[in-house]
């Protein structure tokens, strides 16, 4: 039996039984120490100080935020689920499950929305068949999800990505992704939230085009159209390729496009051509309410630069020609094209949209 009455604060800290009591609060320890304190009331001060110090030392060693903890537990749970589905898979290291944004707890997302308007259910029959390289088929087990209902169906993929499948659409994915790439098939419409993994590009195969997710957190979105396939990028970077199985004769440079923010690609099925353009109403990238830009006698180049940054669009202009042009304006929440219109009116220029870029045609202000 220790003579706790002689203990100083260091002794209490070093004492195993005392630490166990403070940290674990088990009934037997509680009873002992409450009793001891009753018999040694003059030691209450030092005991409470030692208790506080131990709690502080405990808390001081916590380096994990609740958000990070939640993210990691979800990642683990997703990996465990895919391991359960495929018991033969015995390699524990799956770096591609790594979530992206440390600390925020948010998964970097790639959001892809596809509309494919004709024969949405002619999966492997008929003309619109999703052509996929044979290596994709080689990985044995594929899971096919068909949505015959009236509401969106959620599917979660082995890598933690999620898919919201629209009605009358069909979606297939491998039970486990191969290391070199994550490839899925789509016929119809779906909304993808893809976890980022630079080592393993995420490819969505549709009958006419292949959409490859390249970069960091960004959004891809499509608009309505007839007999068209569209992919729209909001932020980040996406590659759209014509499905080569159907376009063998085409020159490669015409069958692949990189989409930057606020750009979209329209694939015309009849002509089998792809065209890149800006979306109807480009939205600011990042914070939606990034605030009002105020310019006072500012060189117009600076105005274009801030717009380029805000919308991540390409604005092409002759810097030398417009060097003398100054602008006083307050640019707020109005659409990009309205802003451009105002600026061009002020400097007596006009703008054109060519291949997803904004071209400013003007004359010197001098």
């Amino acid at each position, binding site marked *: 039996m220790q003579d706790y009455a002689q203990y100083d*604060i*260091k002794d209490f*800290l*070093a004492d*195993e039984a005392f*630490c*166990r009591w*403070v*940290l*674990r*609060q*088990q009934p037997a320890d509680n009873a002992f120490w409450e009793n001891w304190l009753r018999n040694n009331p003059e030691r209450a001060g*030092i005991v409470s*100080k030692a208790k506080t*110090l*131990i*709690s*502080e*030392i*405990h*808390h*001081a*060693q*916590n*380096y*994990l*935020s*609740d*958000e*990070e*903890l939640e993210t*990691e*537990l979800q*990642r*683990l*749970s997703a*990996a*465990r*689920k895919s*391991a*359960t589905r495929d018991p033969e898979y*015995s390699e*524990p*290291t*799956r*770096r591609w*499950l*790594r979530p992206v944004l*440390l*600390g925020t707890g948010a998964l970097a997302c790639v959001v892809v929305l596809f509309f494919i308007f004709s024969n949405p259910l002619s999966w492997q029959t008929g003309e619109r068949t999703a052509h996929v390289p044979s290596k994709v088929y080689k990985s044995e087990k594929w899971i096919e999800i068909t949505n015959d209902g009236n509401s969106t169906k959620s599917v979660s993929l082995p890598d933690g990505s999620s898919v919201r499948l629209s009605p009358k659409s069909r979606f297939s994915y491998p039970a486990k992704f191969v290391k070199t790439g994550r490839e899925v098939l789509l016929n119809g419409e779906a909304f993808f939230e893809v976890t980022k993994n630079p080592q393993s590009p995420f490819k969505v195969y549709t009958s006419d085009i292949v959409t490859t997710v390249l970069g960091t957190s960004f959004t891809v979105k499509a608009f309505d159209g007839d007999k068209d396939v569209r992919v729209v990028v909001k932020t980040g970077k996406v590659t759209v390729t014509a499905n080569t199985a159907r376009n063998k004769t085409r020159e490669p440079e015409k069958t692949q496009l990189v989409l930057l923010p606020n750009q979209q690609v329209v694939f015309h099925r009849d002509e089998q051509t792809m065209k890149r353009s800006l979306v109807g109403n480009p939205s600011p990238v990042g914070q939606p309410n990034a605030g009002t830009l105020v310019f006072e006698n500012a060189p117009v180049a600076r105005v274009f630069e801030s717009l380029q940054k805000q919308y991540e669009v390409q604005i092409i202009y002759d810097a030398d020609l417009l060097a003398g042009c100054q602008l006083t304006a307050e640019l707020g929440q109005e659409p990009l094209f309205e802003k451009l219109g105002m600026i061009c009116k002020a400097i007596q220029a006009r703008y054109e949209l060519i291949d997803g870029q904004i071209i400013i045609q003007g004359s010197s202000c001098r």
Partner: protein
Amino acid sequence: MKKSTPVPADEPLLGDLWNRFRENDEQAFDELAKRRYRLLFNYATRFTKDTELIKDCIQDLFLELWYRRARLTDTSYVTVYLICALRNNLLRKLRVNTRLDDSVDIAASSDVFTDNLTVETMLISSESMSQNEREIRNAINRLPRRQQEVIFLKFYEGLSNEEIAKVMDIEKQTVANFVHRAISQLKNDLPSFSQIMPQIIFLFLSSASTELQP
């Protein structure tokens, strides 16, 4: 961020979760991970400040357990088992890294531990800390690495010296020595530790002055 609660008395429950997950109970597995993830993460920060590596290591550890669930044996020390397994994996990984990259020298990094912690980690985790706790954290991070480890196992997880000796594969007496050295060092470094000191000085001074008086 909520404060991490002191070690909850869920060790018996843990044994139950362990047995259930060995019999393919997925929920038990997730629950086990949930209850011990924070402990393992914080423990690993005593070895490296590379939080991504830590997360990978813990992920791998749990997945490995899941794959090997049929072959795992019953254990009444689930926490100690997890700590030991993580320690082995971490040290193995760090040794490999050290061989590849001299900048990740574990021994060398121990002295400058605080400075090397990512700013992000420091900010996130220190938001909810009191000034006192921040000072304690810094003082702990100035200790030699093995003392840090002992302090963690003792004051975060509440392990006994014997259990610490088992985890670190050292003698029980060595653990006791580490504990004493670390506490003495912390006492020197921490003002809160020695708040009783002024009284003692006061007593000393007053007795000294009494003596001086003729």
